[in-house]
């Protein structure tokens, strides 16, 4: 265990960003801690923030566990992260604008044509169409892990509709309510501007023909969706309508929403549904969630869709390998954030390496998400490894593999008191006319001892994430 970087304790000394927290936790008796934990849970329950897991059944109103011990970044640490995240968000958007236009990066031989153009997420339907301001991915969620004081790795990019930002905001809200003294004694940068920034980001990509203040809506698959809470929370915080496909219709090259006062024009759609379901006339004809004719309006410039349909080709796990190359190609810069070394099982020699070292590797499905369909070699039994080996051999193109990273730990409240637990970080970068990043993000924590899987569907919890002012 000593090989893991502990973000609070370094060689027996408390690292500076956590200085204040040492006293705080030392002075908190167990009874008070339990009391606070119960209070936090009641608050979450009251505001209705719950998380339902796809395909798991059970209680759809289950709470995601909240760990009160915050995760802290010093201003200097964040400064570097921020530059790296924004750089990556710029490169990903430049890549998308390119592959739907001339495809220079492919022509230059820096990324294989088939990887891009035969990718499931590549949408022929939007080739040649340039969305407003040339932005495809308006909310880029970049999953980061840390292995040392200065070592950060990007685990994956989320260019479509990264979820979880409501936890970033609610976690902070709850910490401020329960521990106001911590906020008085630490100089913690606020994250509450996020909804306002999201709103102005969306407004900045309104169609050119939009008269006056754009009407923005959030498009949700509906109240049965596991992230419905987040959709309604963001709509409320931004002061925009939360709509389902059935609330919208197209006419005369515009999109309208059905209101009690008749049709009202819609200019920007922040959609939280997948491309395939957006428009039965363009994509899956059986989709009941989408808006018939929406894509025709989009491609003729009558409405903006965020993220742009087709943005998924940039966050594919096989394309991920080439993101550092995108940074060099489009920005002429060296990547500030590193990729995790990745082996592509689609390549014969790399597949051999993967199969020989399954016990040490993490293997993921190329198109999977949420920690499903994944093998963590060092934490798996022989039988599990062999079962997975068969799956890889059966369809090697579907898998990539990475070394098991020594994820950093942050002290967390556990039954016995306080103990280190592994964490990752998802910051949310906003890309519109400007690129914005609020100082913070969602820290996910693997609450089971020794576990490296932070997904909420696999026993993960969340923490408030602090960025200290200088």
């Amino acid at each position, binding site marked *: 265990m000593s090989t893991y970087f502990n973000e609070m304790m370094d060689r027996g000394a408390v690292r500076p960003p956590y200085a204040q927290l040492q006293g705080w936790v030392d002075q908190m008796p167990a009874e008070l801690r339990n009391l606070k934990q119960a209070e936090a849970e009641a608050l979450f329950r009251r505001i209705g923030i719950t998380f339902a897991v796809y395909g798991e059944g059970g209680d759809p109103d289950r709470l995601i566990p909240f760990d009160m011990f915050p995760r802290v970044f010093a201003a200097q640490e964040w400064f570097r992260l921020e530059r790296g995240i924004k750089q990556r968000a710029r490169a990903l958007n430049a890549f998308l604008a390119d592959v739907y236009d001339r495809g220079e990066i492919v022509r230059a031989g820096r990324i294989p044509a088939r990887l891009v153009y035969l990718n499931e997420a590549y949408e022929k339907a939007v080739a040649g169409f340039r969305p407003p301001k040339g932005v495809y991915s308006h909310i880029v969620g970049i999953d980061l892990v840390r292995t040392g004081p200065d070592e950060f790795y990007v685990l994956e990019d989320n260019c479509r509709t990264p979820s979880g930002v409501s936890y970033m905001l609610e976690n902070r809200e709850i910490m401020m309510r329960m521990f106001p003294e911590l906020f008085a004694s630490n100089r913690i940068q606020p994250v509450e501007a996020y909804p306002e920034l999201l709103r102005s980001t969306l407004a900045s990509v309104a169609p050119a023909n939009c008269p006056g203040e754009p009407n923005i809506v959030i498009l949700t698959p509906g109240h049965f969706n596991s992230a419905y809470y987040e959709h309604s929370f963001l709509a*409320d915080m931004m002061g925009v309508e*939360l*709509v389902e496909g059935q609330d919208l219709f197209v006419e005369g090259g515009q999109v309208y929403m059905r209101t*009690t*006062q008749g049709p009202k024009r819609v200019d920007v759609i922040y959609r939280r549904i997948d491309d395939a379901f957006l428009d039965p006339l363009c994509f899956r004809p059986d989709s009941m969630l989408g808006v018939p004719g929406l894509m025709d309006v989009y491609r003729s410039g009558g409405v903006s869709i965020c993220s742009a349909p087709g943005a998924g080709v940039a966050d594919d796990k096989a394309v991920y390998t080439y993101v550092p190359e995108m940074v060099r190609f489009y920005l002429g810069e060296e990547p500030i954030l590193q990729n995790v070394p990745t082996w592509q099982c689609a390549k014969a020699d790399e597949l051999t390496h993967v199969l020989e070292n399954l016990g040490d590797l993490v293997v993921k499905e190329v198109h999977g998400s949420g920690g499903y369909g994944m093998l963590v070699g060092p934490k798996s039994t022989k039988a599990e490894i062999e079962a997975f080996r068969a799956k890889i051999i059966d369809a090697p193109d579907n898998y990539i593999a990475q070394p098991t990273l020594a994820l950093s730990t942050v002290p967390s409240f556990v039954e016995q008191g306080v103990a280190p637990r592994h964490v990752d970080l998802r910051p949310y970068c906003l890309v519109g006319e400007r690129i914005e990043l609020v100082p913070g993000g969602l820290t996910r924590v693997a609450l089971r001892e020794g576990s490296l899987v932070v997904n909420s569907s696999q026993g993960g919890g969340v923490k408030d994430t602090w960025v200290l002012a200088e």
Partner: protein
Amino acid sequence: MLSRTAENLYWLARYMERAETAARLLDVGSRIAMLPNSEQGYRNEWEALLRAGGSADAFARRYGDPVQRNIESHLFFDHENPSSVVSSITRARENGRIVRTALTTQVWDALNTAFQEMREMERRPRSAQSLSVLTDWTMRHSALVRGAIDATLLRNDGWDFLNLGYVLERADSTARLLDVKYYVLLPNLSFVGSGLDNYQWRTLLRAMSLHRAFHWAYGGEVTAAKIADFLILNPQTPRGLRPCVQAMTHHLDRLAQAYGAVTPAQEAAQALRDRMEAVTIQGILDEGLHEFLTRFIREVSGVGQKIHESYLGGDL
């Protein structure tokens, strides 16, 4: 406001009111069952009540024998009966969850607490829960939700749609209860004015929590004419038809004013109110109470249809 949001608010209210109606039916039924048996036994009376709730056939298929325990199951716990207390509260809460941000924390709390407690009750053994506990529980939670709405919601269009849901559902259920009593409950005309008849009338008033109010307002002997006047025309009766119609036009007028546009919904409600203002109790009895109520129910449903077309469907 999104049409669908308005629709969710409207149905939230309708389902809350429907839960209360189911509880009241249960209460009426159990009191009637305490009577010495009439010639046909009390089976007829239960069936009549089920008919008022519109679920007599479904009940017969699912349960067969209308004994108290089956009726309790049907009207309170049955998820397959769309008008049962659990169905209604589940749907009210689901509608509320969808438009969570259009509600205050207090309203959501009241709604969600009712739902969570109800799930608790479903898990508890049935023998530990008497009928009066069930009906009291329903009344209490329905009042809590209603109170939270009155005390904390902004008086905007959403408020009007909630209220429209309440009053339309209430007008419908009062009319049905009254109709059942008069038309179905009495086995034959010879009972009119008899001791049995009066007992049943009183039970009906009691089920609507109106028996004391009635005596304060009318005093003396209970007659069909007095009760009809009380439940149909008296402007002070909280669950009466006339106040429901007045509230209907009130909320629709507020909408017309806020939106700066009159729709067929206002016209339909106005026409209904004009008729209610003009009618007398003698006129109703001459037409026949059943005929009057049947027409009333149809007209209320017509107003609901117009509200749907004008505001909730979004197909203007």
